[in-house]
C-alpha cells in the first residue's frame, strides 16, 4: 500500500434552528433567512441577550424511541438524529443487511464512530438543587437525602459520550471511536480523526458527528458578561459586528473509502482531502491578533492534502461575529493566501453558533455549496470591516474558484482546526 486511501463522504445529516434536513437548512441559507429569533425556551425578557437560533423540534420526532429519552439528554437527541440521518443517507445499513454473517461481523468491527460533544454543561447539576436547598449547606444531610430527588440515571444521562454509545448500539458500529470534548472544535476534530482512522486502515468507514446545546442560562450569562454575545444578530466580518449568538443542534458526515463506496454504488457527495490542528497556547479566552494558530492549521491542512493555497475554491470561515476572532481570522487567511483569497463566507448568521457542532455543520454546508457551485452570501453583512478590507465576503452569492472548500473552526483554548474537502464531480 503506497498511495493513501482515498476517503469520500457518502452521507450528510444536520439539524439546527434553520431546519432538520440538509436541504431545508441550505434553503434557508441561500434565501438569506436567519433562524436567530427571540428565545422561547427560557423567559429571557429581563436578559441583556434575548435571541438565539433555537431548534424546537420535539424529541420524539428526532428520535422516536421514547424509552431511550430517559437515559440521554437533549444534546444527545440532536447527535443521534444527525448521525442516523448521515448513516441512512449513505445506504450502509441496507448494504449491511445483504452481507453474510461473517462479512457482517467484519463490517461491524471495521465501522467507527467519532463524536464532538458539548458535554460538561451546567444545567445537569441543577438536578441536585432540591437536595441542596433542603440540606441548607449541611453536607451530611445532603448525603443522606439526595437520592430522594435525583434520578438514579443522572450520571448516564449526562455522559459526554452518550452519542457514541447509542449510535453504536443502534447501528452496530463497533470499531475505532473517540469522543472529543474540545469546546468548539470537537465536531471538526471528529471529522479529522474519523478520516485519519480510515486512512491508517484502523477502520473502513466511520460516522463523524458534532452536537451541542449551548444556550443554558448559565452559559448565556457568562458569555454575555465576557462581551462575547450580540444582542441581535451575527454579522461576520462586518464593521458593526457585535458578537455571536448561540444556536443548537448537530451535524454529521459518513466517511468511507472511495473503493468501498464505488463498489457498492453509494452516492458520493465529496472527498475528504486533509486536516490541520494547532493551538495558540493562549489559555481559555485569549486569541492572538495575528491569527498565528489558524494560519498554521490551514498550512498543515494544505500539506496534509498535498495542495497549494491556489487550489482552494472557497473558504467557510469560522466567522463567529466577535470583534477579535473575526479580525484575527481575516489576518490568518491573508497570511496564507496573500492577495489571492478565494471567496469567503460563513453560516453562523443563519444557524447561530452551535459550539461543538459548529465546524462539522459548516463542513456539511461547504459540501452542499460546492455541489451547487455557489458561495452563499452573508445576509447580515452591511459593510466589510475596513480594517481588513478588501476581503472577499459578500452579502450576495459568489462563485467558487474551484471544487475545493476550506472549512475553518476555532474554539476556547486557542484552538484552530482546518478541514479541506472536494466536491464530487
Amino acid at each position, binding site marked *: *500500500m503506497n498511495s493513501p486511501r482515498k476517503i469520500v463522504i457518502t452521507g450528510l445529516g444536520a439539524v439546527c434552528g434553520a431546519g432538520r434536513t440538509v436541504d431545508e437548512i441550505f434553503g434557508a441559507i441561500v434565501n438569506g433567512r436567519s433562524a436567530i429569533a427571540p428565545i422561547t425556551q427560557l423567559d429571557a425578557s429581563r436578559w441583556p441577550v434575548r435571541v438565539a437560533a433555537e431548534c424546537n423540534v420535539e424529541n420524539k420526532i428526532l428520535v422516536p424511541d421514547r424509552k431511550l429519552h430517559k437515559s440521554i439528554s437533549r444534546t444527545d437527541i440532536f447527535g443521534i438524529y444527525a448521525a442516523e440521518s448521515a448513516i441512512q443517507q449513505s445506504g450502509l445499513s441496507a448494504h449491511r443487511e445483504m452481507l453474510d454473517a461473517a462479512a457482517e461481523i467484519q463490517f461491524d468491527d471495521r465501522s467507527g464512530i467519532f463524536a464532538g460533544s458539548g458535554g460538561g454543561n451546567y444545567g445537569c447539576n441543577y438536578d441536585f438543587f432540591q437536595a441542596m*436547598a433542603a440540606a441548607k449547606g449541611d453536607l451530611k444531610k445532603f448525603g443522606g437525602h439526595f437520592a430522594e430527588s435525583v434520578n438514579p440515571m443522572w450520571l448516564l444521562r449526562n455522559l459526554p459520550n452518550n452519542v457514541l454509545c447509542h449510535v453504536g448500539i443502534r447501528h452496530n458500529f463497533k470499531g475505532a471511536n473517540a469522543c472529543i470534548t474540545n469546546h468548539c472544535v470537537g465536531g471538526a476534530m471528529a471529522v479529522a480523526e474519523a478520516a485519519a482512522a480510515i486512512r491508517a486502515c484502523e477502520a473502513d468507514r466511520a460516522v463523524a458527528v458534532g452536537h451541542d446545546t449551548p444556550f443554558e442560562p448559565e452559559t448565556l450569562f457568562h458569555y454575555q458578561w465576557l462581551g462575547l454575545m450580540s444582542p441581535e444578530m451575527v454579522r461576520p466580518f462586518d464593521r458593526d459586528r457585535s458578537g455571536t449568538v448561540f444556536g443548537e443542534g448537530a451535524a454529521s458526515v459518513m466517511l468511507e473509502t472511495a473503493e468501498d463506496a464505488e463498489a457498492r454504488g453509494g452516492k458520493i457527495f465529496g472527498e475528504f482531502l486533509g486536516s490541520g490542528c494547532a493551538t495558540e497556547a493562549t489559555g481559555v479566552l485569549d486569541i492572538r491578533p495575528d491569527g498565528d494558530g489558524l494560519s498554521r492549521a490551514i498550512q498543515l491542512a494544505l500539506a496534509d492534502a498535498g495542495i497549494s493555497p491556489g487550489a482552494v475554491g472557497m473558504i467557510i470561515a469560522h466567522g463567529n461575529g466577535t470583534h477579535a476572532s473575526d479580525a484575527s481570522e481575516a489576518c490568518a487567511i491573508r497570511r496564507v493566501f496573500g492577495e489571492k483569497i478565494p471567496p469567503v463566507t460563513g453560516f453562523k448568521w443563519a444557524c447561530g453558533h452551535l459550539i461543538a457542532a459548529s465546524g462539522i455543520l459548516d463542513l456539511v454546508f461547504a459540501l452542499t455549496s460546492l455541489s451547487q457551485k455557489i458561495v452563499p452570501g452573508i445576509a447580515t453583512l452591511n459593510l466589510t470591516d475596513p480594517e481588513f478590507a478588501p476581503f472577499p465576503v459578500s452579502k450576495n452569492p459568489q462563485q467558487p474558484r474551484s471544487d475545493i472548500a476550506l472549512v475553518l473552526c476555532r474554539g476556547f483554548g486557542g484552538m484552530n482546526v482546518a478541514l479541506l474537502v472536494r466536491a464530487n464531480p
Partner: protein
Amino acid sequence: MTPRRRTAITGIGMVTPVGNDARTTWTNLQAGRSGLATIGHFDASGFPVRIGAEVKNFDAAAVIGNPKLLKHSTRSHRFALAAAQEAFADAGIRPSASDGHRWGFCAGAGMMGVDYRELETVQKYCAPDGEFQPDGFLAENFPADPVAFCRSQTNSGLALLTRHFGIRGYATAVHTACASGGQALGTALKVMRRGHADFMLAGGFDSMLNPIGLSAFCLLGALSTDNDAPERASRPFDLTRNGFVLGEGAAFLVLENWDSARKRGANIYAELAGDGNSLSCYRITDSPPDGDGPIQAIRQALGDAGISPESVDYVNAHGTSTLMNDRSECAALRAVMGNHIGSMAVSSTKSCMGHLIAAAGAVEAAVCALAIRDGIAPVNANYTQPDPDCNVNIVREKSRPMKIRAALSNSLGFGGSNSSLVFRHPDEVDA
C-alpha cells in the same frame, strides 16, 4: 512502505492516591500499600458510600507555585499541572519557542468542571427553595466569576496546560468515561505516527470525588459500600468483590520519536507500541459477559504493535472490582490469549489506588512503563478468594519480579468504549 515511526516514552509524571509523584506511586504500588480511606476533604459522613481514593497531602501552592495558575485551576487541573511538570523534568526536554509548534497535547479529561462551592453559589441565587429560576443570575449582587467560568469549560485543562508549557501544535481533549486516559494515549500515538507532532504530552486527569460525583456513582450502585474496611474495598477479580472505589489523580507521559530519543541519549522507559480501540455496542454500563468488544480492542492493539499474544508477559487489567466488568475482561483475555493465558501475569492496580475514571488509563499506562523498566509485575492487592469466572494468573500476595517483554493495559468505559495499549521493552525494539 516506509517503516513506521516508533514512539518512545521518555518522561513520566503522576499524582495518585498512593503518591504525589511517580516514584512514590510506583514504590507504594509495588508494596501493595492502599490509598483507600474514609473520604477526608469534604464531609461524606452522610453518604451511602463514605470511602474513596483521595490524593493526600497535595500542597498545590508548593508544587505549582504560580498564584495565577492556582486561581485558574480546578482540583483535577492541579493534579494535571503537577504530573505534567514532573513528566517534562523526567524527560529532560520541554517545548521551546522554536519547537513548541511541533509539540502536541492529548488528554483524557474528566467530565466535571464545576466546583461544588460554585454550584452552591448558583443554588443560593437561582434556586433558594430548590426550584431553578434563571433570573437569579441577574441579581445585582450575583458574584459573576469569569475565572470560574473559564475553569469549567470542557477544554479548560487543555487550555491551562498548553499555555503554561507552550505547546502550540495539535491539541485535544477526549472523554469516553473510564476509557478516556487509554484513548488519549492511543490518539497521541496516532498523531505521532502520522507526523502531525514530533513530541506529545499525553495523559489524563480527573476528580469526581466531590458531593455531586460521589452522589452520581452512589445512585448507580457502582461503588463498593465497604465503608468500614476501605483498604480492602477494592478487590478486583476476588469472588467477594462488590464494586469499585472512586479515586482521583493525573498522569502524563512525554512521547517522542524513538530515533530522535535514542540520538539525544534519552532514558527510554518503553515503546508505546500499539493501540486498539473498539465499542462494545452492548449496554451503557456493562461489558458483554463473553468479552465481545474488549476482545477486538486487545487484538487490534497486539496487531498494531506487531506482536503475538505469547510475547505479552504482563497485563495491567482494567479490573474495576465490579462483578460483571472483571468477568468480561477475563473472558476477553482468555479469548485472545488462548493457551498463553496461564503464563501471563495479570493485576489490577485499582486494588491499591481505586478507579481514577478519566485518568485511570493514563496512570495505568505509566505503571506499565515502570513495570517494564524495573521488571516487576505489581501486586493485585486484596485477592484472597479466586473467582472461577476470572480464571487468569493474578499477581497475588506480592509483586512479582519478572522480565516483561511486552505489557498490555486495558481501559473499558461506561458507554462501551474499550481501549487497549501495548508497551514493549526497549531491548525488544532495538533487538
